[in-house]
């Protein structure tokens, strides 16, 4: 702080607390809704303080029938699907970008720039704008309703390749020179020097990609017609539709809470890596 202005200091805290309250309000309401029984959640005004049915709702949502008549698969199954998809996307993207960035930075071979531009182009093609033809390709390959179909089309991405290219370019040339003098081949150099040196970048990217994968909506919505393959994020929409007939808001909000806990936990627990990943990938 440049000067001492106690009043402004108090105002700063007040504004920030107000901001936190506004940002947190939807989550608070969700949490409160998940702690009451279904009957209480149909009475106006809805409660603003937690009730006593949290454990009961939690059990019913996760293992019980819940809204299964409308949504199909049990919630634990959908959580598992989401987790599998998010992990496959994160691991897949990181592995293929690491090796392709390695090839582009450390090898001189014909069509190197051509490959680079092919990867660069994907930066400009978000899944939303090429959704129909991509759906057809996946359908023709027989990958509908599979984890491969859920994750692979979302795996290729220029951002991760760019980021690793950036990281590799900052690694001093002497590293490679000395590695070669010591007789290390390309793959040895990759495993024993490049990977350890880019460890924090990999972790930061992992945080971002996990959230990206977990929160995918349009793609899983289209390619999972089998309710056993639905992800938790997609199921919320089906529950909202079902709510128009039988409003079990306590169960819906408990599901929403379960759907947001893993990515929120990742962001809060790995805040430093998250911030690093966000600023690195978007530049």
């Amino acid at each position, binding site marked *: 702080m440049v000067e001492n202005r106690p009043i402004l200091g108090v105002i700063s805290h007040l504004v920030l607390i107000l901001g936190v309250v506004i940002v947190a309000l939807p989550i608070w309401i969700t949490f409160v809704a998940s702690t009451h029984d279904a009957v209480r959640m149909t009475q106006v005004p809805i409660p603003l303080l937690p009730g006593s049915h949290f454990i009961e709702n939690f059990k019913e949502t996760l293992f019980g029938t819940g809204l299964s008549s409308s949504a199909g698969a049990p919630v634990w199954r959908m959580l598992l699907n989401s987790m599998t998809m998010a992990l496959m996307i994160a691991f897949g993207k990181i592995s293929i970008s690491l090796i392709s960035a390695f090839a582009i930075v450390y090898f001189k071979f014909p069509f190197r720039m051509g490959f680079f531009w092919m990867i660069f182009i994907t930066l400009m093609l978000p899944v939303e704008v090429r959704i129909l033809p991509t759906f057809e390709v996946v359908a023709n390959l027989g990958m509908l309703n599979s984890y491969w179909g859920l994750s692979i089309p979302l795996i290729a991405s220029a951002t991760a390749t760019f980021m690793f290219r950036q990281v590799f370019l900052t690694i001093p040339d002497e590293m*490679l020179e000395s590695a070669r003098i010591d007789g290390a081949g390309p793959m040895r150099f990759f495993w024993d020097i490049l990977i350890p040196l880019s460890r924090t970048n990999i972790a930061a990217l992992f945080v971002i990609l996990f959230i990206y994968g977990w929160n995918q909506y349009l793609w899983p919505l289209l390619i999972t017609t089998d309710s056993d393959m639905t992800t938790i994020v997609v199921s*919320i929409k089906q529950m909202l539709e079902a709510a128009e007939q039988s409003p079990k808001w306590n169960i819906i909000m408990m599901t929403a809470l379960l759907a947001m806990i893993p*990515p929120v936990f990742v962001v809060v627990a790995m805040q430093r890596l998250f911030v690093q990943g966000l600023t690195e990938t978007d530049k």
Partner: protein
Amino acid sequence: MLKRVHFPASALPYLLVAPQILITVIFFIWPASQAVYQSFLIEDAFGLSSEFVWFENYQVLWDDDQYFDTFWRTIVFSACVAVLSMGAALILAAFADRVVRGATAYRTLLIWPYAVAPVLAGALWVFMFNPTLGIFPYMLDMVGIDWNHYLNGTQAMMLVIIAAAWKQIAYNFLFYLAAMQSIPRSVIEAAAIDGAGPMRRFKDFIFPLISPTTFFLLVINAVYAFFDTFGIIHAVTQGGPANSTTILVYKVFNDGFIGLDLGGSAAQSVILMFLVITMTVVQFRYVERKVEY
């Protein structure tokens, strides 16, 4: 680009780029070129045959008032989301930058909406604004405002804007705070010694110095509002009532998957692709002439 010291050419680099190139060609380049190709076709009602019609699909869009309405609506929507979430983030960041104690705690409490999926954000807000149960319609009713976003298009639009902006505050806040913290303290101290109060310093020093960040965030928020808000709209309004919240991405989905107008939907995709390319180029030009302090 290439390292000065590098490995000689062999089969290895091809093997290394192969997975990414394969996925790129199968799931990106091929579908995108299919979209371009389909945008020149008109299929008959049963999808049995199709005819090559050059730019007729585009012509139809050009003559379609509804498409122009959608375009305009998307721009208004994006502008509102960007202004609302960037404005809120800027204010919060400016105060967080002043706070010495607890700045990281505030950051932790403000960033996590980034992790909430758009469709979940939509679900939370639609619950709070549920006309019969929601907490906000209950309060609005007390001041005599009748809230029903299922019937009132303007209210539906306001609701999706609020939900979309809420989710994006975290992102904007992080970048604004980082930008403000990277301004050298000496600049601010010099201004303070010359008698500039906090408001003046913000207006004449901090805000101009973070203008590159503002520009960067404008592009990012535009891309977000154009493409990533699909989930919010699908959960909250499904484009309704009477198309009042249908934005471009939603229309592509709706015409293609629900209306089964493949040619028209493909033509819209191609237009969107051009928009993304333009935005990406603008963003990259910005990165190149990035201002360093």
